[in-house]
């Protein structure tokens, strides 16, 4: 084993590297993630849209979830944890979109149920009049 380290590299490591690391660390602190305004706005819009669509009636738990995430995102902004705020905002938005989608499903199914029952009523009404009119039926 005849290994000899390069002298200038050893010196570089010892002196420059810590400075470089310190610089990076300072730079990292200075560039705190910015306020996730776009995500927060998008989440708020999505929650309001779901509320207006009556999601409170048809997908209450999903809407409540989205509202809670939005409130947590706002709290994270106050705590200056912008990364967490951004994630929570995105989660709130997708949650509100789910509330909206589930409300759409519930409304569509309610319309179908109504159509089914009115078709059934029509059918029964037809059968009833048929039996009334049939010879030998009620006079």
């Amino acid at each position, binding site marked *: *084993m005849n*290994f*000899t*380290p390069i002298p200038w590299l050893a010196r570089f490591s010892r002196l420059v590297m810590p400075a470089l690391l310190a610089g990076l660390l300072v730079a990292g602190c200075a560039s705190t993630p910015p306020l996730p305004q776009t995500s927060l706005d998008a989440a708020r819009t999505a929650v309001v849209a779901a509320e207006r669509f009556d999601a409170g009636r048809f997908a209450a738990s999903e809407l409540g979830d989205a509202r809670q995430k939005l409130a947590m995102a706002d709290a994270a902004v106050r705590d200056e944890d912008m990364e*967490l705020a951004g*994630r929570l905002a*995105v*989660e709130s938005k*997708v*949650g509100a*979109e*789910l509330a909206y*989608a*589930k409300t*759409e*499903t519930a409304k*569509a*199914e309610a*319309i*179908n149920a109504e*159509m*089914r029952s*009115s*078709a059934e009523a*029509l*059918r029964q*009404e*037809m059968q009833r*009049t*048929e039996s009334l*009119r049939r*010879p030998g039926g009620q*006079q």
Partner: protein
Amino acid sequence: MMSHRWWMGLAFSSALLLGCASALQSPPGADSVRDKLARLQSDPVLSNAAPESLERAEVAVRLAEQPLGDSAEDQALGAHRVYLADRQVEIAMAQASTRQAEDQRAQFAEQRSAARLDARTLEANRAQAAAERAAVEAAELKRQIESLKAEATDRGLVLTLGDLLFAFDSAELEAGLSSNLDRLVTLLKKYPTRNAVIEGHTDNIGNAEYNRDLSLRRAEAVRRYLVGQGIGSDRLSAAGLGQTQPLAGNSSDSGRQRNRRVEIIIDNPAPASVSQRMQ
């Protein structure tokens, strides 16, 4: 000394690499989201209902499956991605269900309009049958009217019996009678829902009060006869109108003869009672 440090470095690097390899894995929950998505994708109906949202869900699940380290930061990122993926899968499921419901709705609408069409056809057939029955009845009634030499008016069917039924100043029906009266009995028996008003009329010879009384007694005589023939008395009413409604001038014998008469008015049936009776 130097070689020792070098070996240490190599060992440390290897350990680090190995450590990384073992720590990088899909975040917890990613596999169950994948399962949920796979169930949706394998559903023959739902998988085709909302392709765009299904694709978004697939992208989100793939991102959630990305291996991450076990640092707190990575775990938070993993949980975030898994949450988003789960919501996207749920959204895809909801949208697919909505599309399915809408597709079913088109079928319901078809079924309902088919049922409506059936109902209308049935109704039309019934109406046609009722119209045919009414036409048969009308033709029959026309024959009856013709045989009675009666007249169809707004008030109903008016049958005029001449004064030949009665002797002068008498309210007794003559024996023998008009065959018209027998035909009237037949008609009233055939159409039991029709009522008849019997009106007596006179010419203007004599006291008006007396004439009214005479006309009433003659109308009553016809009514008694009809009741005697089995027509319900509640279907028949009699009125004496005296000389108030002449058909012709009272200046001539022939005019006065036309005015001395008994009219029987058979009321028109209510439209609803036609079909009821014909059943």
